[in-house]
């Protein structure tokens, strides 16, 4: 079976400046590939090229073994997108937003109703289904944003910083949602600036800078290839992180 995603030697220039300079990567079944890099490194251009929104100067994107040039939405029917922005209709309810995007993905009738119920439940929003999206909290909007990206049950999911601006409880919930997807066989590209998030969720990590993948592999492989096999034993007194203190005080349960 072909890998969910194979990117081969992508090059894209904007006004003579190379945003992608020969990027190649592949994503395996049920794998989460973390995409790390500083601002302006080329992460968003890469994700948008995979989405079909950017036409590369050269190179190729293949989804489940099929070439997927920009604009080929048929090749991307198995792809879900969770953008960094809250890309929803603020005046519509949570349920209506899911209905709209479900229909855009070709769902109808009972299949659509079932998918909406499942997505609301998955995102912990069943009780707020009939609230206008603009009235939801930041964390809820983030989760609804994710639900709209997976309403059609994609096999490949592109997540662009899905935990930006949310409280620790919501972030925990989002981690659980992502774990559920992985357990269901969904393969994911996950861009983030939070290293601990990448460590916790990602099977492999690709580090991109100046439009090039400068390193990739598991965390251990990255450590080995950059710092080496040397180990230094240091005795430290383990001080809990501030987040651990916060969660200890406020609990892990979702508040909203």
């Amino acid at each position, binding site marked *: 079976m072909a890998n969910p995603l194979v990117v081969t030697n992508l090059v894209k220039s904007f006004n003579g400046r190379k945003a992608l300079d020969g990027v190649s990567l592949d994503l395996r079944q049920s794998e989460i590939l973390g995409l790390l890099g500083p601002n302006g490194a080329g992460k968003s251009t890469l994700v948008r090229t995979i989405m079909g929104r950017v036409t590369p100067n050269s190179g190729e994107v293949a989804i489940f073994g099929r070439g997927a040039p920009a604009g080929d*939405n048929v090749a991307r029917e198995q792809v879900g997108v969770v953008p960094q922005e809250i*890309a929803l209709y603020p005046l519509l309810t949570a349920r209506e937003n899911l209905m709209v995007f479900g*229909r855009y993905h070709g769902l109808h009738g009972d299949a659509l109703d079932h998918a909406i119920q499942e997505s609301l439940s998955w995102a912990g929003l069943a009780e707020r289904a009939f609230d206008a999206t603009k009235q939801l909290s930041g964390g809820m909007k983030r989760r609804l944003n994710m639900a709209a990206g997976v309403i059609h049950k994609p096999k490949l999911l592109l997540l662009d910083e899905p935990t930006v601006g949310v409280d620790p409880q919501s972030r925990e919930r989002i981690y659980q949602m992502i774990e559920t997807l992985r357990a269901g066989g969904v393969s994911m590209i996950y861009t983030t600036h939070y290293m601990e998030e990448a460590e916790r969720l990602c099977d492999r990590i690709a580090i991109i800078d100046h439009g090039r993948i400068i390193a990739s592999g598991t965390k251990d492989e990255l450590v080995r290839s950059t710092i080496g096999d040397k180990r230094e034993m240091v005795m430290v007194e383990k001080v809990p992180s501030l987040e651990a203190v916060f969660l200890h005080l406020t609990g892990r349960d979702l508040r909203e």
Partner: protein
Amino acid sequence: MIGNIVRTGWMNLRRDRAAWMLSFVVPIVFFSIFASIFGGRRSSTPRVTVLIVDEDRSDRSKRLVNALRAESALKVIDKADAASAEAVIKKGDAAVALVIPKGFGTTQITFGPAKAGAPSFRMLRDPSDMIAPQVVSGMLQKTLFVGMPDMMITGGMDALEKFGGPLTPQQRENLQKQATNLKNLPRQKQQQGDLVKLDVTDVVGSKDNPIIAFYGAGVGVMFLLFTASGAGGALLDEVESGTLDRILSTRVSMSKLLAGKLVYLWSLGVAQLIVMFVWGALVFRLPLMSHLAGFAIMTSVTALTCATFGLLLASVSRTRAQLSAISTLAVLSISALGGSMFPRFLMSEKLQRASLVLFNSWALDGYINVFWREAPLSTLVAPVAVLIGWAVVFFFIARQLARRWEFV
């Protein structure tokens, strides 16, 4: 898919009270204001206020003032002297004053050049009003001819003798008798004596409430443009929020999305015009039911062209703020030139011809053909063809401009 885009547009509108008001309530309010101001009057000529200063105070000058007062086109206000009349005009409460000179009662009317030293009427006017002085001048001449026939006869006798030779004593006596009889006729009978008989027949325009059709079409098309450009801005909201990227990553292509937006804007425009014209029919007796076919044709194509124009404005603009500025300027300009605010037939011929470049002038012409001229449907072929032509051009340009959102 297009149905889903249309449904989404309506769901958003249903939740947006401000947009709902702008689409359906404000146009009705504006239409009602225009209709109340201009539509309540059956007579097509408004009354002109004229200040009369009678410096002569003779029997004849009083008869003239009374004859002017009896004219339905004039509203006569007496003033004691020219200075007070001038003050009223300067204040803006009237545009014209007529001063009847001392000696008018004893001076014979002359046909031909005025006698040297004969007293002359004076007119004080506000030149910003180009119509009222002309109306008063014309009514003065008409009143002297029709309302004071005895003066005309005695003046005419003098002119006849001067140019045609002396009258016999018998002729002179008969004419003097006739002049006296006419002078003693009741004023109403004097007023009835027009020089030529004139029957007036309205050959265009609804018999019930003629001017409503103008304002129904004018206000309707103007607000349709505002609504279409505002609703077209939803596309920019989707661009700015990242929703467009998300939509285009589904089965929806840019062409389908624009087609869906077009159908939504068209349905919104049709609904808006239906609501407004039904309101016009219920409240202002606009004859909608007797012109349904023409209304349906014109509403369909007008809403289509306005919808594509809204999409064009949205695709030209980079941001919502830019769209707001561009659309306000564009809609107000083409509404003014196209006849929404001011009937085109009152414009200069040059401007009337030039305004045919604008699609909304064709829309208004079509509606006016239906409701005002009650012309056959075949007269709508030209407006419909032009409107559809513009719609195709607008949509094509909007589609081309939207490529920048499609791929980078």
